[in-house]
């Protein structure tokens, strides 16, 4: 049994055991906190696929978080509360938008790619703000959580927790299998040395676009989960500050590693919670922490356990 597998098993056990333990000691707040962390970890895992393994610095990834959330919100607004339909729409809509944005953006590279993905996210953000019928800048309240008749009741916080945990582990496993498949190998090769990948005969564009769409769809699922978690949807979910947050979780955790995004999300959000409890002006401490971690933590947290992809 490799060390990595043992560490993962321990982590999963801790997460599985958390709700009963927390309920027993009366600290149910932490169940909500860890659930929120796990949902955002799914978003980070999806970004890691295109950023860490694919080398595409997308500053617009939060757009799909927003699309997924609004899919749930908008359908709920019009009375459609079936979880299957809502979440399928969240994933589908995110995939479609990712296809549209990716088809245009992936033709560029470097700073232009960053800027153009940023621009598209801003467009979606302004669209969200200007749609007064869905609350505009103030956002909209989710009247009821997604209904999965008979299967699971999301109103039960502990059941919802386990759904989030299961989906997070599924996402991690899926990305792990994907990047170690032939498809993933081409993607990583294109990131590592594009000229060489082309010389061997692979055109990076379709692989990158496919990865972009998959990442977008996964992030859309995270958005749907997030809408259910907060029961309130704001356009700020699609802002570039939110994109920056997710990017930071990926970088902090260690790019191009399986555990990286999860570690990064937990680390960042736990530090945030701790700082928030300490002072109202926690960002004045978080900002420099971010700067320092970028300057000194080159390989991220996961780099302390093993050597991630170059």
């Amino acid at each position: 049994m490799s060390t990595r597998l043992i560490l993962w098993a321990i982590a999963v056990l801790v997460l599985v055991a958390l709700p009963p333990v927390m309920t027993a000691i009366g600290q149910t707040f932490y169940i909500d906190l860890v659930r929120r962390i796990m949902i955002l970890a799914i978003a980070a895992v999806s970004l890691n696929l295109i950023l860490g393994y694919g080398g595409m610095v997308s500053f617009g990834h939060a757009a799909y978080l927003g699309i997924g959330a609004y899919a749930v919100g908008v359908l709920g607004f019009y009375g459609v509360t079936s979880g299957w339909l809502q979440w399928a729409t969240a994933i589908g809509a995110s995939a479609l938008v990712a296809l549209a944005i990716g088809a245009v953006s992936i033709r560029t590279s470097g700073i232009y790619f960053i800027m153009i993905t940023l621009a598209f996210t801003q467009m979606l953000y302004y669209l969200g703000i200007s749609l007064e019928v869905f609350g505009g800048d103030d956002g909209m309240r989710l009247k009821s959580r997604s209904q999965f008749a008979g299967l699971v009741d999301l109103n039960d916080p502990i059941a919802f927790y386990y759904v989030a945990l299961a989906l997070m582990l599924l996402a991690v496993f899926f990305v792990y299998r994907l990047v170690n498949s032939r498809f993933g190998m081409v993607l990583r090769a294109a990131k590592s040395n594009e000229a060489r990948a082309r010389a061997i005969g692979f055109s990076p564009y379709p692989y990158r676009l496919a990865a972009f769409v998959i990442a977008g769809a996964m992030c859309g699922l995270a958005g749907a989960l997030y809408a259910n978690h907060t029961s309130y949807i704001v356009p700020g979910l699609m802002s570039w500050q939110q994109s920056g947050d997710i990017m930071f979780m990926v970088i902090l955790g260690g790019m191009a590693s399986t555990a990286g995004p999860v570690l990064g999300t937990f680390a960042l959000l736990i530090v945030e919670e701790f700082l928030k409890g300490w002072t109202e002006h926690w960002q004045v401490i978080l900002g420099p922490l971010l700067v320092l971690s970028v300057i000194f933590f080159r390989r991220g947290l996961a780099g302390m356990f093993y050597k991630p992809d170059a």
Partner: protein
Amino acid sequence: MPWTLVFEQLLNGVQLGVTLFLMAAGLTLVLGIMNLVNLAHGSLYMVGAYLTLAAAQWTGSYAAGVVLGLAGTLLIGMLVEVVTLRALYDRDHLDQVLATFGLILFFNELVAIVWGRASLYAQLPQFLRGHVELFSGSSYPMYRLAVILVGLLIAILLWYVVTQTRLGMLIRAGASNRTMVAALGVNIRLLYTVVFGFGAVLAGLAGLMAGPIYSVQPGMGELILIQVFVVIVIGGIGSVRGALVGALIVGIVDTLGRAFLKPMLGSMISPTAAEAAGPALASMLIYLLMAIVLALRPAGLFPARG
């Protein structure tokens, strides 16, 4: 279409363009010469506005406020460069983006701690208030005209420095091929510091001029920063000329779009639909413009690299 209204909005567009140019000139040089993506440029804009406001209130004189504000912004810019940005020159764009993102959080919160989160009101000095009659029937705020004039003066000054002086030659060479300039024996570190300082002062100037027009609040830098990046991408990275052309285009398109798109749409489709679609489309206009320019000229309108 009332032509005086169009002309006024056109002037407003030029005024926005000039503000964007001051920011874009510094940012495009830093990106072109130092290959540094500096998201914290917007924070220098904000710092300039706040410091000038505070200095003017403290000394009671607008002119003293401006001088102190600019000096303060320059100092803070230098400090940021020495403490954090030096470590980022050799890193890739992703690391720079994230580190400067952290700087943004820091500055926004710092400003909120010192001056609070509410937006502040920047006082105009007596000689800049009031309106000017441009031609019969139309009066335009004196202050906005002053902003346009100052901006154009700076543009001329920058043109002179970049094309007629040795420093300008070094700047153009550095934007075109950084390694070669270092290999030719130029003190590249000093050049970097000068360029960054330049950019910081321009950003501070943009901020203090924008204060009375927009609001002085934490996060004001980010609102304009995205537009500045659009300007740079449209104009071409590393090119001051591109920054000017891009800034004017973006400023005019954005202002005219916001002013006239909704009524124009309202005459074509139903007014209620235009009510929602108008502002949304107007906000998206400059990004569509950027996408079109990138599709036709992927390196921008006036790329500095050969």
